[in-house]
């Protein structure tokens, strides 16, 4: 019987081709939407984690309260024993000190007079330790535009855009005019080793990257750091793990001392929690709307098909097929159609998603004046969910649509069959 019905389904293109096409398009869009949203969300989280938040971050309570100001006068001191303790307690996390600071970069002329100046957003990161992965983490080798990565103390990187504005390049000397940890004025000379472009306008406008020890020297922050960032060694942010770490750490933390270290998760920073929840919500809403819209379309298609097959259903009922059997056979048809459309839609969606995962879409043109920490190339990401998410609207909508349309079979009065079939 199943073979018989399947044969009819294949031969009747209005019963198979049209719904399969609708399901195919729906599944394709769902798969692409899911991989696109996941990609953007993942890129945003990853970008923020690498440049700003870490997967978890340790800092003083006061620093956290004013974190937007990067208040290094409230930075952590004696970081070496603190990091040793963290490494012991959380061996699966890599801990790195960073100092973020603001200042003015002064580019002198040949006689040492100011030729150009510009405000800089500084990063003091561990560039020179042999085992440091910071340069790699910030993708510096691949972001180099001119020159090279600093190899000795006193060398810095400037963002290419910033360097062009200051008209400086590799080998030129610049002076950082800033504020020490204790509130004094700091003047410190550096040599530009190279220029970088990270593809994020917020960073590329005025980035100044120096080795951590140099920045400590410049800002009188011996063994101090504004932030200690923790990165899971898996490289992937784990919401539950981070949350557990934060809860455990904060249970033991001295919350009365404003200079005592506290720990926050990635989700608690830069409004990422709201953003992640919002994106999750939007993906859910998107898929829900797809299911509803496709259910209505397929319900309509089912109703039209039901009208077209009115005679067929009538004959089948007259010949002794039970209403339940007719209804179930239609549901089976819809399962076949939903599966076929979902498989095809998912396959093409995956091809598109893999392609965009590799090539990405460059949105730097739209980000010129943006201050958001966003990557300039958005990519899709294929996750395990990408392989099945298309089946949700593809299969469910088809079956729901058919189930709704097929209710008419039960309402049909067999007593009218002879008249209806005339």
């Amino acid at each position: 019987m199943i073979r018989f019905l399947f044969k009819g389904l294949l031969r009747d293109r209005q019963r198979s081709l049209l719904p399969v096409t609708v399901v195919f398009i729906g599944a394709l869009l769902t798969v692409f939407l899911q991989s696109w949203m996941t990609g953007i969300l993942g890129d945003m989280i990853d970008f923020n984690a690498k440049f700003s938040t870490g997967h978890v971050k340790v800092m003083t309570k006061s620093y956290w309260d004013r974190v937007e100001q990067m208040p290094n006068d409230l930075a952590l001191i004696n970081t070496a024993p603190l990091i040793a303790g963290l490494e012991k307690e959380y061996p699966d996390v890599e801990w790195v000190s960073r100092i973020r600071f603001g200042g003015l970069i002064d580019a002198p002329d040949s006689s040492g007079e100011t030729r150009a100046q510009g405000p800089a957003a500084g990063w003091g990161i561990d560039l020179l330790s042999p085992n440091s992965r910071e340069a790699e983490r910030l993708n510096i080798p691949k972001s180099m535009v001119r020159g090279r990565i600093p190899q000795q103390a006193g060398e810095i990187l400037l963002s290419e855009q910033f360097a062009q504005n200051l008209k400086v390049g590799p080998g030129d000397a610049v002076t950082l005019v800033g504020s020490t940890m204790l509130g004094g004025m700091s003047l410190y000379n550096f040599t530009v080793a190279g220029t970088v472009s990270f593809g994020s306008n917020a960073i590329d406008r005025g980035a100044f990257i120096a080795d951590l020890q140099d920045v400590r020297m410049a800002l009188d922050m011996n063994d101090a750091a504004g932030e200690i960032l923790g990165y899971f060694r898996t490289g992937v942010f784990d919401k539950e793990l981070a949350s557990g770490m934060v809860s455990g750490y904060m249970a033991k933390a001295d919350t009365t001392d404003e200079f005592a270290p506290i720990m926050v998760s990635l989700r608690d920073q830069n409004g990422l929690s709201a953003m992640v929840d919002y994106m999750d919500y939007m993906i859910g809403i998107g898929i829900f709307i797809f299911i509803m819209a496709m259910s209505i379309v397929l319900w309509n298609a089912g109703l039209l098909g039901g009208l077209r097959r009115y005679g067929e259903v009538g004959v089948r009922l007259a010949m002794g097929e039970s209403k339940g059997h007719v209804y179930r056979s239609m549901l089976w048809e819809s399962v076949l159609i939903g599966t076929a459309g979902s498989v095809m839609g998912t396959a093409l969606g995956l091809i598109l998603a893999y392609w965009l995962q590799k090539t990405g879409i460059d949105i730097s043109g739209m980000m010129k004046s943006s201050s958001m920490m966003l990557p300039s190339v958005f990519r899709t990401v294929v996750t395990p969910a990408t392989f099945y998410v298309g089946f949700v609207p593809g299969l469910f909508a088809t079956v729901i649509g058919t189930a709704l349309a097929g209710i008419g079979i039960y309402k049909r009065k067999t007593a009218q069959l002879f008249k209806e079939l005339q």
Partner: protein
Amino acid sequence: MKSNQSVISIRNLVKTFPMGNREFTALNGINLEFASGEFSGFVGPSGSGKTTLLNIIGTLDSPTEGEAMVLDHSVKLLTQKKAALLRSQKIGFIFQTFNLLPVYSAAENVEFPLLLQKMGGEARRKAVMEALEWVGLSDKAKSRPAQMSGGECQRVAIARAMVKKPEIVLADEPTANLDAENSHNILKTMVKLNQELGTTFLFATHDEKVIGYLRRIIRLYDGKVAFDELVTKI
């Protein structure tokens, strides 16, 4: 030929339908008995109750009052499921407009009732070919309805009704869409099957050609049996 045992027994049958605020009486006090192997027909003008009576005998509808026993089953007491089972095993239907399934071939259309009975593949194929031979359409087994004439389609419909070897075949105006030659061919086929297989044929018709082949004519008028006569063939 099967024995002349009763296959249909109708006692004081009344069928009413709601019509606005009133009740319309389609059948009023019908008493009829049909023996196995009959070739009979209900004749009468439109609205006389022919199709309603065929519906009740075919277990597609149930009486409002009275009793209709079909193959020892009270139609009134049959559930939807049991009625469907009885139809699938014992009752064949032939419609005015053939009602073949358009995407299937002649053989597949004939095969369908056997699939409902879950008959095995080999026996099914044999039965289908045999049924197509009865109606002289072995060479059209693979043709689809759109590729056949009206007469051929109706012969496929007869094969479909007969393939499961039902005890009763109900035919509602089976020749209404056919020309005279095809009508006579169809009717001769039915007579042949009635004689060879002993199947009871009941028609609802006002076609004189069909009436000419009937061995018993039940004339209905305003929901009542106006007369019921056996025809003596010369």
